């Protein structure tokens, strides 16, 4: 049975077309760029890194700063662009009154995690504390 283009069908197709165009436009334009970095936290190394970060935070809670630094440096060696590891390192240096190092680590953390709002705001809160120190 041949499909007749009735006015009703025409209207429906037109609405579908408009909706498709709107939907396509709502996708943010992001040209593929094979040169740019991915986000590292989604990589499989994330599990040992998370474990080391947790151990570092536990050490930090017990004021064992050197041990915390050791854990975090190990985490960074496994996954060097993990912005949270750098942030925790900054936190550790702040607690250990090494304020210049704290600021340097915040800067480094931001350079890897500028897209992560939680991270940047954590760094923003920590920065003045290190500056005051």
């Amino acid at each position: 049975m041949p499909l007749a283009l009735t006015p009703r069908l025409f209207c429906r197709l037109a609405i579908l077309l408009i909706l498709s165009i709107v939907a396509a436009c709502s996708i943010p334009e992001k040209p593929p760029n094979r040169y740019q970095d991915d986000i590292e936290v989604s990589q499989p190394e994330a599990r040992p890194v998370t474990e080391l970060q947790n151990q570092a935070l536990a050490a930090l809670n017990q004021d064992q700063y050197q041990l915390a630094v050791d854990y975090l440096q190990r985490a960074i060696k496994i996954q060097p662009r993990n912005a949270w590891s750098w942030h925790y390192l900054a936190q550790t240096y702040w607690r250990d009154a090494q304020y210049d190092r704290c600021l340097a680590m915040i800067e480094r953390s931001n350079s890897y995690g500028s897209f992560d709002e939680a991270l940047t705001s954590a760094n923003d809160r920590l920065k003045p504390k290190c500056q005051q120190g």
Partner: protein
Amino acid sequence: MPSRAKRKKPKSANRRPRRNYRLIAVLLLVGAFAVYLGYLNHLINSRFEGDTWAIPSRVFARAQELYPSLVLTREQLIYELDLSSYLAVKAEPLPGQYRLLGGSLEVNTRPFDFGTQFQPARLVQVFFERGRISALIDSGSSEDLQLFRLPPVILGSYYPDNDEDRLLLAEDEVPQRFIDTLIAVEDRQFFQHWGLSPMSIMRAFLVNLRAGKAVQGGSTLTQQLAKNLFLTPEKTLLRKINEAFMALILELRFSKQAIITAYVNEVFVLQQKRIAIHGFAQASRMLFRRSVDSLEAQHLALLVGMVKGPSRYNPFSSPDAALSRRNLVLKIMFEQGVLGEAEFSEATAAPLGIVDRLPGVNPFPAYLDLVKRQLQASYSSAELAQRGLRVFTAFDPLLQRNLELGLARGLGRYNQPELQAAVVIADYLNGDIQALVGDRVTDFPGFNRALMAQRPIGSLIKPLLLYSLLGEQLTLASKVKDEPIRIQQSDGKIWEPRNYDRELHGEMSLYEAFIHSYNLPFVQLGVAGGLEALAQNLAQIKLLKHDVVYPSMLLGTTSMSAFEVSQMFQVIANNGYFTPLTTIRSVTDQHNQTLERVPFESHKLFDQARMIQVQRAMIGVTENGTAGYLAERFPARTLAGKTGTTNEARDSWFAGFSSRLLTVVWLGRDDNGPINLTGASGALKVWSDIMELQGFESFKISRDDSLDWRHINPANGGITRKSCEISVLLPFPKDQVPTARSRCP
């Protein structure tokens, strides 16, 4: 009677002085003897109560982290364990041993003190799948492990002047069976005598008399210790007297356990090239790859047997003599009740069980040299040779192996025996120097070219020069001219630089000029203002070698070592963050107390967005430029790099980086003669051989919101279509995005 009295007086007067003389003589003798004993006592004190032995400082590699998903093959893990002198066994491994189970590997790690943490021995099974670790299981608890740290390999030691090497055992670390064997063979009266054994001396005297020559000694273990520690081996009466008194003093002053422990640590067992191996602990590691607490009867017997004649019973040069001596010791052990009959039979039937050959002394001399130079800021050579420091470094033995194999393969391309090489591999994100060679013969401890050879770097200067040029006026798309230039120098002479191919290429984008390493556009831009900025940037990373800035610096006439070049490229690869390259991460004393730590440093010296533009241009070099060979060899990977060649092809350089590794290769001759290799035909090929063996991930540029990416035509810098075959995607500061459009040719 006065005459009699007179006669008597002188008699008594004569007698008194004579008695006095005798008394004085006796007193003098006693005094001299006391002084002599006091002197011996002082000698003993100074050794026993201070640092009895000069202990070489040990240099450790990085501790290999093991976790599921880590790229590591079983063969690589075996290589690492072999370097740590782990022993392959078939039964369940003891600490310091491993076994292969199907496709997996079960290792029992040695206990190790990392300085901040002590890690006990642990039995762990490692599973592999497609070149990665797929699972880690604690064999004891069957628990899945997310992470496990292998104790690090010792990559070398700094030995004292006497070239002695030893591992010290504490009193409670000497196994009782070891003591029993030693006493059964060397001194059965050890726990009864006071340092001397008249019975042993008499027996030895009679045996020697019967034989007509000295065939047996009557020395106790304490006498042997006194001789080894304080005296020379010469056979004189005076030495024997000194030895006897020292033995007596030792017995008076110290416990039997302390004396036997000192003996176990002092005794000379083995010669390893120029190094004398003293003490059973180190000898056991060397010969059997075992710690003394895991030695079996036959091992104990061989070690104790070798004491009588380390050269005569050397199991490598005289295996038959060593075997027969070992079996004699086993027999004594059995007769003295140290061994049961079954174990005696089993041990006697066992082979010597030693390693095929002794490991080389310091097989990584160039790296060790750099560690020493970096340590010398805090420690003297004497301290390094005597204090038994533990130096933890970033050295990666697996990477070093790939470097050495790749270098050998790469140099094999060129029939130039005079061609020398230096290579540095670093993790540019944290500043760790992970591998290094300073000679084409990688285990030759000579001139370390990676640190010492200062050579012109040629076009390796261009990335930092490009950084210095980019800014308000210039972008990668800016048009530049490749045309002749004449510069009058300060001495009045005219400098007329040329391109390497001696051609002129007309107008093009700055990107295009960079990837083909054309000299003239960079000299034009440099003399117009980039030179001063370049000098300032070099000064920031402490690589400006001269106060006077001269135009030829624009073409890399500045000399640097491969190490210095690595520091320059570290900043470039790391988005402008300067991290001092280092080998050392921490130092502890011999009791594991931390003396020094080298934390991660990070100083933002350069603008990230501008450095990203440089990185993108360096990717262009490997895709379509002078290092286009990389795109052919590794088509699916993205790498960034730069070639460098100096006048008359005397130096061939390549510096390049992947996702984490920065590798710098230099080739040249020590006499500075031409090698007829460019950066692309020489160092780049060697670089590729190394990286192919190592395996690597693509370099990715960091996201930076201040940059916009556009497709441009590199011939003229105009915006073009993505689909245009010649278009390249380049980053631009948001306010400097090119507006001119270019037609796709």
